[in-house]
């Protein structure tokens, strides 16, 4: 683990689980999905990140301080979530530390939850969810579940680092990307992603409350989205719209 990042465990961490990631990105899809998973599955905080790489802030819940990056869990999954936008300068160390920590707990698979922005999002009735995987076996496994594969393109942000690091270290990993708004919190996209997550992990999640509270989530998430936009711009997030030059 990077010396700059410390992961402090609050509880005994179960081994051989699936580890999910919900970090601020386009449409805040991952964070909204993660927040819904925490409340629906009654996940509790099992560990948190302590690092000088994080901005000088704490998140207060019920008057008590919490790290902006925490890991939640239950008997079947671990979920890393960030309540603040992560800067482009620190994202490598932060993601590598989380992945290495997951490896130390013999995590069997990592899944990053995020979005893929589409310009005509307002007009799309049924949102598609795409997947990319760290190795051919994982790619086939998600294809067999009926998830669309993101065949060509660029990926920018926390999920890009996760995919690369997992591919380098031989850890099976999948990134799920729901079609979403680029700049606006998108609870519908988070709901679409959670439905596909069920098919991959078997963890059933009711998304009806998430859809019912859509407007409230959009209102609450404005400030996180605003800060995330600033960091996405520094990361050249719009490169995901680019058409790649295929080098064989």
């Amino acid at each position, binding site marked *: 683990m990077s010396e700059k990042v410390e992961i402090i465990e609050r509880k005994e961490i179960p081994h051989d689980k699936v580890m999910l990631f919900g970090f601020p990105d386009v449409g805040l899809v991952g964070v909204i999905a993660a927040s819904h998973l925490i409340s629906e599955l009654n996940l509790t905080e099992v560990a948190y990140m302590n690092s000088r790489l994080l901005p000088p802030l704490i998140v207060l819940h019920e008057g008590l301080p919490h790290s902006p990056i925490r890991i939640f869990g239950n008997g079947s999954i671990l979920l890393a979530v960030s309540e603040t936008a992560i800067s482009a300068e620190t994202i490598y160390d932060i993601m590598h530390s989380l992945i290495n920590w997951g490896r130390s707990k013999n995590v069997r698979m990592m899944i990053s939850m995020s979005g893929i922005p589409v310009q005509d999002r*307002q007009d799309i009735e049924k949102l598609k969810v795409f997947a990319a995987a760290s190795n051919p076996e994982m790619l086939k496994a998600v294809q067999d579940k009926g998830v669309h594969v993101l065949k060509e393109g660029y990926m920018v942000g926390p999920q890009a680092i996760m995919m690369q690091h997992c591919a380098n270290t031989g850890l099976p990993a999948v990134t799920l990307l729901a079609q979403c*708004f*680029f*700049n606006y919190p998108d609870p519908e996209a988070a709901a679409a992603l959670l439905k596909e997550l069920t098919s991959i992990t078997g963890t059933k999640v009711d998304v009806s409350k998430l859809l019912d509270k859509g*407007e409230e989530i*959009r*209102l609450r998430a*404005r400030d996180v989205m*605003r800060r995330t936009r600033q960091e996405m711009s520094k990361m050249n997030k719009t490169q995901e719209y680019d058409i790649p030059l295929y080098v064989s």
Partner: protein
Amino acid sequence: MSTRRRRSIFEIISEYFENLEEWTERFREALIEKPSWNHRACTIEPLSNIMVTPTEVIVTVDLPYAEENTIRVKPIGRDTIEILAKMKRKIRFDDLGITHYKGEFQTLHCQIRIPVPVYTDKMEVRFKRGILEIHLFRKRGHEIPIE
């Protein structure tokens, strides 16, 4: 044939300072952090976005809880539009879990500067999935003939 009046040095300097003031104001707006709500005016500032295409400028604004028939889009000056919408219900800080501030909000409000010249007197507006979309048509500039 129309003749163009030559501008005096004072007019040029005055215009220069006006432009400088406008740019300073834009930088100030971009750099100085402020809350996304105005407790005195009881307004919440929604998220917005601007896209410039060769023929039009498309402004979108995310308007959660907006009552569709109360949405107003008003031009302010030559390069700014104002968006106002009443919310379906009053939102208090308490509703958002915030107990150290007091106040309630019932209007979404923002002003958006348009980065290129547009006709602000004619625009197309639609509201779908809680997102307001405004199409403003660009003013044509001087075209350089290709020889």
